[in-house]
């Protein structure tokens, strides 16, 4: 089963994989658009964010971008390996390239998110 089958996506190109904890990251389309990733700033375990808050920053050679929370929640795990090797995101932004794991606090936050298939369609 492919990772993208169960993820939900935002219009700003984040994904969340429901679960306990939920897994949050950037879609392959986002990474592709950014190009060579050279910098990643992630939050700390215990930080809390509301849906839509900036929780991380990413930079490619070209540009700097903010990453927004797809759902409200508390950070329970951070993919710290990526901070030293953000270029790994260009290879895989899902299985090994997720950004944070969270304890989601509001089930209703998922309602306006798109399935990966719908998200892809929206991009066309």
């Amino acid at each position, binding site marked *: 089963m492919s990772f993208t089958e169960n993820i939900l996506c935002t219009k700003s190109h984040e994904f969340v994989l429901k679960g306990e904890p939920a897994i949050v990251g950037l879609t392959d389309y986002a990474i592709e658009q950014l*190009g*060579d990733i*050279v*910098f990643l*700033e992630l939050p700390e375990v215990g930080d809390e964010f509301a849906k839509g808050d900036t929780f991380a*920053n990413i*930079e*490619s*050679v*070209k*540009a*700097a971008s903010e990453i927004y929370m797809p759902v409200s929640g508390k950070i329970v795990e951070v993919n710290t390996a990526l901070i030293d090797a953000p270029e790994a995101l*260009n290879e895989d932004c899902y299985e090994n390239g997720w950004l944070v794991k969270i304890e989601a606090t509001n089930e209703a936050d998922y309602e306006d998110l798109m399935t990966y298939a719908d998200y892809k369609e929206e991009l066309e």
Partner: protein
Amino acid sequence: MVKETYLHDKHVALGAKMIDFGGWHMPVQYSSIIEEHKTVRENVGLFDVSHMGEVFVSGKDAEAFLNKIVPQDITKLDYEKAVYCQLPKEDGGLIDDLIIYKLGIEKYLVICNASRVDEDINWISRNQRGFDVFVDNQSHNYSLLAIQGPKAIDVVRKMGYDIEDQKSFTIKPATIEGIKLLASRTGYTGEDGFELLVENKYAEFLWDKVLEKGAEFGIKPIGLGARDTLRLEAALHLYGNDLDEETTSIEAGLSWSIPKDKVADYNGKEVIMNQVANGGNKKLIGLVMLDRNIARHGYDVYFNGEKTGVITSGCVSPTTGKNIALAYVKNDKEICTGATVQVMIREKLHDAEVVKRPFVQKRNKV
């Protein structure tokens, strides 16, 4: 309306990511900026820079006229030679930066920035009164292909061009692959290289030929993304970022390009000569970030707790892996090579060291 070069379809066919750049639909990258950057530093790359402006200046007073509008001494420019110039206003602020080539007696070629062609032409016509010159903007009729990198010379040789006596910063009429063109040994990457100026109708044929003949040397098409990181490593200014109408040549660190003994008067001479002696209001510095953060265009720069200036260009240097930037700061003696300043990035101050420019030394002196 967004303009397209005559090579637009080639870029799309090669799978380039296209962006709007100064009113032109241009390739920003074909594969990856870092890969393309390294291709140019290690082997050779091909750029479409047809968006740049080509203006021919001819007539009895062509030399005197150009000499009036740039601080450089055009009377000392020999036939088939090129010189890097600026186009200052009376107050020294820059309309554009240019390369002027002497093509013959009373005939010059001016290559200018794509985004500034209209302003340049406007400025030139305002200064033209009293001079017997013919200014011919041919930007729409010519394509410009840049072949850049340590193996650029191998590629043009392979294409049958005898470069034996063509030195850096010279231009010659040449016939390459049966096409009559102007071949100039210049570029904007900090590497050796050539720029081929051809009529639009030959652009696609020449583009394909360069890629075909360059294949054995590892040539690849290079987008504007890598063009920017290459020029920034070489600390070459980008108009609109590092140069503008509020910045003088001296403030921009271009004093080296300005003759101090030029007799003739020129626009901005008084301000420029005064700044040669006393310095400008601000100065350009090179920075290397001391942590992983990247300084970008527009970020504020602090020194001793006070705001002193702004970043005008910044990126990660693919060659050194360091995060480099150009900034304008107050003309303060204490902000010198080795000093530490701070850059405000996402509401936090990050240390950066002032370093000598360029950030990467040219390895292939011609």
